[in-house]
């Protein structure tokens, strides 16, 4: 078996300074969203100017997704959207939902599992905001959400956010330790929780599943599909797309029905499911190109085109 290199984004140190993040969060909470959004311009400009890696990876992605050759303003918009979603977490986590216009598309069908208090695996990606999803879960008693998060990656931001909302901290399932993580996931699912996880970044010793994605070969994690097949749980997909201004649209889709898959068929099943997920991810990335927040080489097996 070929050796799996450490994913590139793991090497990219968090580029934000703790005191600065805390200052921005403090300012945002006291000034309100409209004023705080003025900060997005210098923040986005800083990341655009100081990050050659970010610029390069943004351009590589945008070349694949945009109908026109990417301009530096496209990269700026992508960074600006990213900064917007991070800033909005402050307001979403402190319960200031009235700041936003959040719409739900396709929710009825896919949330039926959750509505019945039935466990489901909820897959998302670094596309748009995951935090708007909490708004849907809030105020629905039967609907309980747990989120898998790597506390080591992005630790500082997670800590700051967790302090804003203790409920957020309680619903995190720590992504460390392979077998322990799977047991944790099972315990949450067995108690009827919906478990949300990012399904676009390969971590640890997972060789991943190669899929066609935006005209190239990319790798997606294999864990979610194995878990769903072993436990016979439905898989629902959700993307909280930022539309600009104060509007978000949540898109729900059922990817797999509840179904146990015999071990012998699991590899083929995972391949088919991961490819289907990649196609839906591609659909939403094309529809909302600036919501893509994976600023690393997503197609490492492809020769660079620039």
């Amino acid at each position, binding site marked *: 078996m070929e050796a799996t290199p450490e994913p590139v984004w793991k090497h990219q140190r968090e580029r934000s300074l703790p005191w600065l993040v805390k200052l921005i969060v403090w300012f945002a909470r006291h000034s309100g969203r409209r004023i705080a959004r003025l900060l997005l311009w210098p923040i986005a400009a800083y990341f655009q100017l100081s990050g050659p890696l970010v610029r390069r990876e943004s351009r590589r992605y945008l070349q694949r997704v945009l109908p026109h050759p990417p301009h530096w303003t496209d990269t700026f918009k992508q960074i600006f959207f990213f900064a917007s979603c991070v800033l909005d977490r402050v307001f979403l986590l402190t319960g200031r939902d009235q700041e936003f216009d959040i719409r739900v598309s396709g929710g009825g069908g896919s949330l039926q599992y959750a509505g019945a208090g039935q466990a489901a695996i909820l897959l998302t990606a670094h596309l748009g905001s995951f935090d708007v999803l909490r708004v849907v879960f809030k105020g629905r008693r039967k609907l309980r959400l747990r989120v898998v998060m790597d506390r080591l990656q992005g630790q500082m931001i997670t800590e700051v956010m967790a302090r804003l909302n203790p409920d957020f901290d309680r619903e995190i399932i720590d992504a460390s330790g*392979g*077998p*322990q993580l799977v*047991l944790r996931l*099972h315990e949450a699912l067995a108690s009827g929780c919906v478990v949300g996880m990012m399904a676009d970044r390969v971590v640890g010793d997972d060789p991943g599943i190669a899929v066609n994605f935006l005209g190239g070969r990319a790798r997606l994690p294999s*864990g979610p599909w194995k878990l769903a097949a*072993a436990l016979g749980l439905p898989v629902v997909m959700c993307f909280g797309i930022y539309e600009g201004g104060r509007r978000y649209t949540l898109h729900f889709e059922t990817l797999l029905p509840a179904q146990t898959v015999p071990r012998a068929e699991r590899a083929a099943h995972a391949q088919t499911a991961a490819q289907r997920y990649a196609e839906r991810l591609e659909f939403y990335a094309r529809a909302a190109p600036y919501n893509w927040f994976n600023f690393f080489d997503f197609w490492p097996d492809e020769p660079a085109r620039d």
Partner: protein
Amino acid sequence: MMAAAQALEREVADLLISALNIEGRDAESMDPDAPLFGAHDIGWGLDSIDALEVALAIQQKYGVELRADEEATRQAFTSVRTLAEHVAAHRH
């Protein structure tokens, strides 16, 4: 006592083989100290989803729970011997 422990190790190894549909391996030939995780050539080569299925099979057969985030669970998932010891210590 020794014989009972050995018999349980055999049983647990059989459980692993049937729960995970492992072919070309029999419980008798496996070293009870072989690592459960890691490379196939020296051990069982289980992945974390396999571990979950083993935990569920053990719970079903012996009524013994392997709970996440407990040191006992981490230790139990070392080898067939440690799994069998965990079962022996916790089953009623």
